[in-house]
């Protein structure tokens, strides 16, 4: 008998009587102002929330705050005025020198400031991890209170790769001292776009 058959037969023999799945959690915590909560939590985990009302405003922000950054790329056509063109479709290793990557998120979650991003919003899976700084655009109306609502959105979604990103890359492995920028982005900016 091969290992697969052996393991499965041992499980069948040893697993207890079937118990049913619990009912879904009732009334998980809701925030009166999820956007305010999101911004506070993001600040607590080392990110910066920037409320904006248009893509022009984001472009202006980039021009003033990121003026010294050399390589700025974006997966958002709306920001092509201030970002590099034709960067897509290269070997993932070539993105090593990206200073800032600007991408879009499907939605954000207030309780933990996580943003849900799937492969098609990154162009390349490595983009949000390899860049020195990450900036994400999210619609204000797409900030949910909690993770249950979040998974309500992605329960049946189809993607090759998806990730929740909450703040810049970080570590506290040396004597519990928090350091931002372990391997990935050292900073994270989230542009929260007002409802039009």
């Amino acid at each position: 008998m091969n290992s697969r058959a052996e393991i499965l037969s041992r499980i069948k023999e040893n697993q207890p009587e079937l118990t049913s799945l619990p009912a879904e959690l009732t009334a998980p915590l809701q925030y009166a102002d999820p956007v305010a909560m999101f911004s506070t939590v993001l600040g607590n985990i080392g990110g910066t929330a920037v409320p904006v009302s248009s893509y022009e405003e984001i472009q202006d922000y980039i021009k003033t705050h990121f003026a010294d950054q050399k390589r700025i790329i974006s997966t958002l056509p709306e920001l092509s005025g201030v970002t590099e063109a034709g960067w897509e479709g290269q070997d993932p290793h070539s993105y090593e020198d990206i200073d800032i990557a600007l991408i879009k998120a499907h939605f954000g979650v207030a309780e933990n400031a996580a943003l849900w991003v799937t492969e098609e919003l990154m162009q390349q899976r490595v983009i949000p991890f390899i860049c020195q700084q990450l900036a994400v655009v999210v619609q204000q109306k797409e900030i949910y209170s909690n993770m249950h609502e979040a998974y309500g959105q992605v329960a049946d979604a189809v993607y090759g790769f998806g990730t929740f990103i909450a703040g810049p890359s970080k570590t506290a492995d040396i004597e519990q001292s928090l350091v931002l920028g372990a391997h990935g982005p050292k900073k994270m900016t989230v542009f929260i776009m007002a409802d039009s």
Partner: protein
Amino acid sequence: MNTGTKDHAGLADIFNEDEARVDWHDETLWFVRAKRDKAAHTLPEWEALRENASQIKDNVLSNLHDYLLQFEAKAQQNGITVHWAADAEEHNQIVHSILKAKGVTRIVKSKSMLTEECHLNEHLQKSGIEVIDTDLGERIVQLAEEPPSHIVLPCIHKKKEEIGELFHEHLGTPKGESDPQFLTAAARVHLREKFLTRKAAITGVNFAIAETGEFVVCTNEGNADMGAHLSEVHIACMGIEKIIPKRKHLSVFLRLLARSATGQPITTYSSHFNKPRAGQEMHLVLVDNGRTKQLGRADFRNSLKCIRCGACMNTCPVYRRSGGHSYHTAIAGPIGSILAPNLDMKEYADLPFASTLCGSCTNVCPVKINIHEQLYKWRQVIVKEGYADTKKAVAMKAMDFTLSSPFVYKTAGKAGRWVMKNIPFLVNNKLNAWYKQRDMPEPPKQSFSEWYKKNNNE
């Protein structure tokens, strides 16, 4: 780690030699435990969440056979190659054979307690494959040639000066430099070079979803993602108990995991791998290594619900004061002490006794594993099977003899009180295991029954 024939108490003695370090270790972990409490208290539904998670895991264990088949079929449809390993040896061979087929001799690895349990690094290194651990804490202990001492905080036992010295030796940082910010920046440069040049990456798995065939890896550093997205081959290794039924159940577990582990509301990255990247090979190894046996032990089955948050370690008064290495197993602390005897009851017979049975581990466990009850149950099994420590077995026999006879009990009590009063050095010395770390009590003048007799007659 070669611990010889030492048991937990013996290894803890070594750790306890440096009292200042013990205090520091204790305080640091208590600080993490306090952060967990604060995070848990932000959610009014915390207890309901724990109950929900516990019941989902019960359902998983009761239907594991079908969930694994469902997961395998979906993962294969997604383009992931699924392997099954009965034990550590087979797991290591599978990983090695994948690397060999691709001609890869240098790899990066992100944190995986399963590969620690299987001693994968040693196996690959013996076969001429270089393994670089990319989690900062794991890289530090790897440079120090030590195993991790904690499942979430692998180098929590190390002072920054020691890490500075290691980095000076291996990464060429200036001598005497111990600033965490500086050292982390040096490690970032060192590890980026590895991510960019290694063709294969190994990651662990936090959750695997039967419904969709995808698996989720949680990190704060982003090292699993850097490895996986830059590699030609991604190998993910998981214990068969990591399955959960549906994607939406992740909402429950992701809310609990980081809050229980470090007090964060969620890890920085919670990555869902569904399909390999175009041109990439993705392998997933499902490992048993004693888990099916534990599934059959009704008293210990619950331990398979563990999501590896480490909350039980941070709260454990024994772990905090004896250090992770004194547990001589990949997973230290309370949860490791109920998992290890399943793998080898004789080798790990000491671990269920490395606890006060205070129940704090059970109270913080996000999936409601009855850890302290299982520790107590293991003690009984171990004594019955004859694996108990000789000193403990002799003491138990003496206790049994004394307590079974009223005459012996009375006489022994009287003798004990007399000795403690008149020749205290007979008990207050190193030969008495009870005297270690404790003061002997002031002996009472009379026993309760003597007092009762006297007072009732008057």
